[in-house]
């Protein structure tokens, strides 16, 4: 096993806080190689990747926030790279709250690059957009031939009994050759139409890419099968536990295994 963890605190403010996770087959066989890195301005939080386990097939990594997240001016960049035939599982120890930003904003950008036959499973915990927060999130997934991804996303608009902050998020997934698979944008905020989310304050999504959920899957949300393969299951809820899509998430994990 190769494991590298580096930290490079610097003071040049304005840089984003960068997190990198890269796993690949080890040249001589055996456990996969794992490269983990977190780096950012000294006065900003970082998301630190922590290795939980690894074997010859893949690794499990926990993304641990260090410092208060997510505040005005924070710029989080997370880059995930999974080598050919390797499986990466990402977990989060807790949800994230984007707090009031007093007119400023924060960004949260994720790029996932999956080589041939690579797989990623990322069980996202709730992302809460508190009143006064202004957040732009982007997720870009590039799938090589035979690559699969299972992503869970739970967006909560406002803490309990609170109005929503402003959220703009983009998800773009492309297949081999850059062919578009899924491209979705959602803009929601305090002035949004009730009809956008049907009055819900929680948007739960299970996204399977490069793999389609079984036909007989029970519907804990609305199911959307994509033209290029892959399934999105979405639940719009008022209570968090009603939008976690436990059944669909289990099936998505199996589908990409």
């Amino acid at each position, binding site marked *: 096993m190769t494991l590298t963890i580096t930290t490079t605190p610097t003071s040049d403010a304005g840089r984003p806080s960068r997190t990198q996770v890269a796993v690949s087959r080890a040249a001589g066989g055996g456990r996969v190689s794992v490269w983990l890195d977190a780096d950012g301005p000294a006065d900003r939080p970082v998301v630190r990747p922590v290795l939980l386990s690894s074997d010859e097939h893949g690794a499990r990594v926990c993304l641990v926030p260090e410092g208060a997240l997510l505040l005005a001016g924070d710029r989080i960049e997370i880059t995930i790279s999974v080598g050919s035939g390797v499986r990466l599982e990402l977990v989060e120890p807790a949800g994230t709250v984007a707090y009031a930003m007093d007119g400023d904003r924060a960004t949260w950008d994720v790029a996932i690059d999956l080589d041939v036959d690579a797989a990623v499973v990322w069980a996202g915990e709730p992302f809460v957009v508190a009143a006064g927060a202004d957040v732009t999130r982007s997720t870009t997934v590039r799938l090589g031939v035979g690559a699969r991804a299972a992503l869970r996303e739970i967006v909560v608009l406002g803490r309990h009994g609170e109005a929503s902050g402003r959220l703009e998020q983009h998800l773009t997934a492309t297949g081999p050759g850059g062919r*578009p698979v*899924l*491209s979705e944008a*959602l803009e929601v905020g305090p002035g949004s*139409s009730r*009809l956008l989310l*049907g009055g819900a304050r929680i*948007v739960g999504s299970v996204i399977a890419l490069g793999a389609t959920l079984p036909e007989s899957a029970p519907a804990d949300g609305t199911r959307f099968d994509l*033209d290029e393969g892959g399934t999105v299951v979405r639940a*719009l809820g008022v209570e968090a536990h009603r939008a976690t899509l436990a059944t669909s998430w289990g099936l998505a994990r199996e589908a990409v295994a």
Partner: protein
Amino acid sequence: MDRPPPSPLLLMLLADARLPTAGHTQSAQLEPATVWGLGVSEVADFIALRLRTVTRVEAATAVVAMHHLRAGLDVAEVEAAWAARTPSPAMRATSRQMARALRRLVCRLWPESPHLAVTGPGASRAVVLAVAADSAGLAPRDLAMLVGYDDVQTVASAALKLLPLDPADVACWVLDALAAVDALATEVAPLTLPSAIPAAGAPQIEAWAESHAVTSRRLFNA
């Protein structure tokens, strides 16, 4: 050959709901929305939301498709970009079904169009509208206005069948929505790249499209 009709007249022709393109079978998801509980006071909001999201995607797709047709580029890339931005299989199926009816009409109106061959039976409505608009000599902005206006009128006329409304009130909503149609057209008219097509989703409208596709009790096809 006679001079072709001026494009404003052809735009009126294409925007006319009396064309045999099965427009009366569509509610643009207003029917499942009313089943859910959308009230009379929310129809104008529904129209505005569509113009910012799903209809914006369709209008931009049509504009980019017409650019591809006129520039001799592969329209399949535009179809793929549209499909990736239309996660609801019910909405994709409806679009393709509407496209088939429209394509039959375009084959009769403009049989000489060189683009009929490259848009097969699986084409989306936006792409077939682009073929029609190209034959009619429309500008990209006209085509975007056509898509926006048609969506507003689809919701408005369906509203009269679904909700107790005064037709004149509904006409007022259409008039009020024209500024948003104009703004949409201005935004998307310059687009040429499939990747530049906006991806604005409307999760509840997409969910309504799916639930409506499997219900047996409905006035409208979609």
